[in-house]
């Protein structure tokens, strides 16, 4: 659902100091400038590999952790049709995780190492999944707006330079367009339903508004920049640009249902730029560092799955098989 291109200060500094073979770097950069893709077997700068692993891995974790809040609602879906759609969506998310782990794996980090780093807290996933899905309306809002935000991000990233990531994203975007449509359908049913249905929808929108603004990362003026990531087509749009694109596409679709966002300053100005009250970025940091309402629960569920399934994996493991990095 999400690939963060936000750099830590430390990474940003190193990006600008690592020295690469100038001849190879030149060939690499001109290939990207020509619009060609980089494939796993190609030479690539150390930092390019490192940043891509970090980004694709976070994205993969976000997919599988993102399925957890929705998964809990499968048993309580309001009808059979909604239940079928939700099962399909949750299965897709796990499938997307698998596609992305494989894409990251082509860069040299194994899936097991990535899963270990998720459990030991070394690698992150999107903050948005550390909030609870309290009512059925949360499932509608997640399906429509969280997936909508993810699609904005993923369509942009699918134009990037790394072949395996782009191919995975194309497939993911195709499948997520179903998530979006069924989410919209669900939102519209609640919005045009009973007083109570409208009330739980409004409540869910009120709670998801800030996490959605946070989704695209800190404002450009606050985040560490790297010209190189742009040049290498790892990062393709700024956080503010993506956030604006999201608001432009989705705010009107909520307003037309006579549902509001909890922000009196939310409006589009004459230049086509959306204005909104700055959300609390300290909360964003607090949630990233483990302080969100569901961080502990999400990791606990993953740990449980990891441990409960260990005997199966070990029984299946063949000691004579030699692991090689996947091809594409």
């Amino acid at each position, binding site marked *: 659902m999400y690939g963060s291109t936000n750099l830590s200060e430390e990474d940003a500094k190193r990006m600008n100091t690592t020295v690469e073979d100038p001849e190879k770097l030149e060939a690499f950069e001109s290939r990207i400038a020509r619009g060609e893709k980089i*494939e796993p*077997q*190609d*030479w690539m700068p150390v930092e390019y590999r490192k940043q891509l692993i970090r980004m694709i891995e976070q994205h993969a974790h976000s997919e599988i952790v993102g399925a*957890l809040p929705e*998964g*809990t*609602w499968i*048993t309580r879906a309001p009808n059979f049709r909604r239940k079928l759609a939700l099962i*399909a969506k949750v*299965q*897709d998310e796990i*499938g997307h995780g*698998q*596609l992305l782990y*494989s894409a990251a*794996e082509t860069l040299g980090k*194994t*899936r*097991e190492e990535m899963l*270990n780093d998720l*459990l*030991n807290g070394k690698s992150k996933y999107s903050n948005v999944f550390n909030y*609870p*899905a*309290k009512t059925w309306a949360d499932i509608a809002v997640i399906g429509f707006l969280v997936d909508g935000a993810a699609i904005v991000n993923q369509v942009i990233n699918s134009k990037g330079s790394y072949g395996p990531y782009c*191919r*995975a994203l194309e*497939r993911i975007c195709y*499948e997520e367009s179903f998530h979006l449509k069924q989410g919209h359908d669900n939102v519209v049913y609640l919005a045009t339903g009973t007083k109570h249905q409208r009330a739980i929808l409004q409540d869910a929108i009120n709670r998801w508004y800030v996490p959605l603004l946070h989704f695209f990362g800190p404002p450009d003026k606050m985040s560490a920049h790297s010209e190189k990531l742009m040049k290498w087509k790892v990062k393709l749009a700024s956080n503010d640009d993506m956030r604006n694109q999201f608001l432009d596409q989705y705010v009107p679709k909520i307003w037309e249902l006579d549902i509001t966002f909890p922000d009196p300053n939310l409006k589009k100005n004459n230049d086509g730029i959306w204005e909104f009250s700055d959300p609390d970025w300290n*909360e964003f940091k*607090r949630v990233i560092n483990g*302080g*969100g*309402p*569901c961080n*502990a*629960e999400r*990791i*606990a*569920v993953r*740990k*449980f*799955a*990891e*441990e409960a399934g*260990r005997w199966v*994996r070990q029984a*299946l*493991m*063949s*000691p004579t*098989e*030699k*692991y*090689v*990095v*996947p*091809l*594409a």
Partner: protein
Amino acid sequence: MGEFENEIQNTMNTLDPRIKRLSLEPSAVVEKTNSHLITYEVFHQEKRGKHVTHVGVVHASNPEMALVMAKEVFGRRGKTTNLWVVKTSDVYTFGSDDEDMFETTPEKTFRDPAYYKVRDRIEKFQQRQKPL
């Protein structure tokens, strides 16, 4: 702020049945292993008579499991007639440094049907043959 801390306190009072129904004892030890499930390259055939094309990778312990995984990951939507899986280590490829050996192939126009244009010659010939 206060609301958040409250939330954390209630973290394990959850809607997740896996947490609710099972006694969960997250151990501090995360599995550390150097023996990974190997990967299989997956090929997908959409229709009878179409090419079978590479679509991605799955992790599996053996080819049968790889097929099951491939069906789940690559056969969820649209049409599928068949899936193939091949152990990644069994695939042989050229190195990316060898890409230049194909560089001149598009120049070999003598291999293209469009290279052979005889109409002009036939017309000139027919002109010459006409009685004066």
